[in-house]
């Protein structure tokens, strides 16, 4: 825990000792992360992360919005997995309300969440390989990511800031031909993962740069609050989708990949395997997609269909009331966690019985995972710091909020 004390570990006046500032504008820090490195030659003796460059006060803004307006803010926290954040927030509010969500909406949420995981892992793999020097993987990954973004655009009208989930269900019924497009992608994708693997998994340079680098033990990882693929690569078999299922994940069969080495290479293998598992879940969701409504039967919370609004007086009144003055949520508090591509994404929502949340706090996985970076980089080379940052897959928007 050397980074905890404010005093530097080395004396900068000594020969060979240097304090190096890395970032916030540095292509390998995945955003605006600043690292203060104390180095002796090429050896990193101490690393202190400095964050907050992307702080926009989203938690404060949430307190001034209606419950349904907060959904669009949750996209902007983590722009690589918007659906996961949407899901976590709407689940938290639905738990506060005690709402039952129809099965079709739940399965659609699972399907889109797994596509989001693939999307996020593709960006991670491309940029991580780019950092270490493998340029071509990036182009391959972004080719498939484009397909996923087209699917998102089809279903929500947006490529990145989707806001497709609503409190009580989904915004819209998926368009005609949607499932065929997803099916085509899901059938094609495993072969594409083979392509990425053929470029990297047995590549000698890749292995030399990643094996034994950025190692963290299972005890340290748990103590530092690391979650998600980074934790599973250290040998802790824990996945919220399986261990604390939400949104009907208990109806899907999948395998949770675990590795024990705890280094950059193990984290790479875990994520690549996760992409294969995710596409398996997508296939199951496509095969068993239930029919039925996509919104809960709660007229005071869920906006009525357009058609009903034009024919029924009551629906029009409810629509007007929800849009102009929101809906009230019974007082209380919930903490809802979901397995985001980066780890445990948690929303702590406190209600005081009004139409605006009293407090919304996001427990972001990148925020906690970043705390493990000093331990991973202790007494390693500067070049390994770049590999380690890439391997924990941080998104600065989520860290700073």
């Amino acid at each position, binding site marked *: 825990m050397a980074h905890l004390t404010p005093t530097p570990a080395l004396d900068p006046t000594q020969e060979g000792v240097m304090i190096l500032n890395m970032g916030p504008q540095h292509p390998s820090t995945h955003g605006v992360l600043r690292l203060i490195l104390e180095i002796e030659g090429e050896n990193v003796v101490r690393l202190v992360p400095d*964050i907050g460059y992307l702080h926009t006060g989203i938690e404060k803004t949430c307190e001034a919005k209606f419950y349904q307006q907060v959904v669009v803010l949750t996209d902007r926290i983590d722009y690589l997995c918007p659906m996961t954040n949407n899901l976590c927030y709407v689940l938290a509010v639905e738990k506060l309300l005690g709402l039952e969500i129809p099965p079709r909406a739940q399965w659609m949420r699972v399907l889109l969440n797994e596509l989001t995981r693939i999307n996020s892992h593709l960006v991670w793999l491309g940029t991580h390989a780019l950092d270490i020097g493998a340029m071509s993987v990036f182009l391959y990954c972004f080719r498939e990511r484009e397909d996923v973004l087209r699917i998102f655009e089809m279903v929500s009208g947006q490529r990145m800031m989707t806001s497709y989930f609503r409190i009580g269900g989904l915004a819209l019924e998926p368009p005609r031909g949607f499932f065929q497009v997803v099916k085509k992608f899901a059938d094609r994708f495993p072969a594409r993962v083979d392509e990425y693997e053929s470029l990297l998994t047995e590549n000698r340079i890749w292995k030399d740069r990643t094996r034994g680098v950025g190692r963290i033990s299972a005890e340290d990882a748990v103590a530092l609050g690391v979650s998600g693929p980074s934790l599973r690569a250290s040998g802790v078999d824990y996945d919220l989708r399986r261990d604390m299922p939400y949104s009907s994940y208990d109806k899907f069969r999948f395998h949770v990949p675990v590795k024990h080495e705890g280094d950059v290479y193990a984290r790479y293998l875990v994520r690549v395997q996760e992409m294969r598992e995710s596409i398996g879940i997508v296939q199951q969701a496509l095969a068993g997609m239930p029919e039925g409504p996509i919104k809960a039967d709660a007229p005071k919370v869920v906006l009525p269909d357009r058609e009903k609004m034009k024919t029924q007086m009551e629906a029009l009144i409810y629509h007007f009331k929800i849009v102009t003055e929101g809906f009230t949520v019974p007082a209380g508090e919930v903490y809802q966690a979901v397995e985001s591509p980066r780890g*445990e994404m948690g929303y702590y929502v406190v209600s005081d019985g009004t139409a605006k949340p009293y407090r919304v706090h996001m427990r972001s996985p990148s925020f*906690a995972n970043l705390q493990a970076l000093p331990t991973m980089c202790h007494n390693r080379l500067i070049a390994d710091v770049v590999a380690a940052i890439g391997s924990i897959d941080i998104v600065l928007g989520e860290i700073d909020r």
Partner: protein
Amino acid sequence: MSLDPAITDLEALQERAPIALLRSALPGAVTGGKFDRGELTLWIERAHLREACSLLKSDLHFNFLADVTCVDWHPTEPRFEVVYHLLSIPRKERLRLKVRLAGGDASLESVTSVWPAADFFEREVFDLFGVRFQGHLNLRRLLMPEDWEGHPLRKDYPVEGYR
């Protein structure tokens, strides 16, 4: 919409493992409890927080500190509630701890010695709410600039405009 009423009577929650443990080992540490929407919350006396946390970690395997945050109930007193979300990975169980703090004396003991993960979380709470954590080695602002005045997530801090 259906919600079961919350259980707020500590006696009725007696048989829950965290309450039973803390009541026998640290009498007076638990000042209240709540079981609502499937989540268990305990109110802990400020002086006993660190001891209670290390007991929960060693005896009930709450080995993962998921989150630390704060809620400002301004203008009511005690004003602040610092909220800890614990997770036991082996037992797949969650627990929420809360500590009430008066506005004039918003400080409590740091739990970084129990879970190193508390480092960033406590710095964030200090930064945005002005709650001090004694025993934290590096309690500096985390998200806001170092020379910022005020604590933005307090309820008497405006959402927009200048102060």
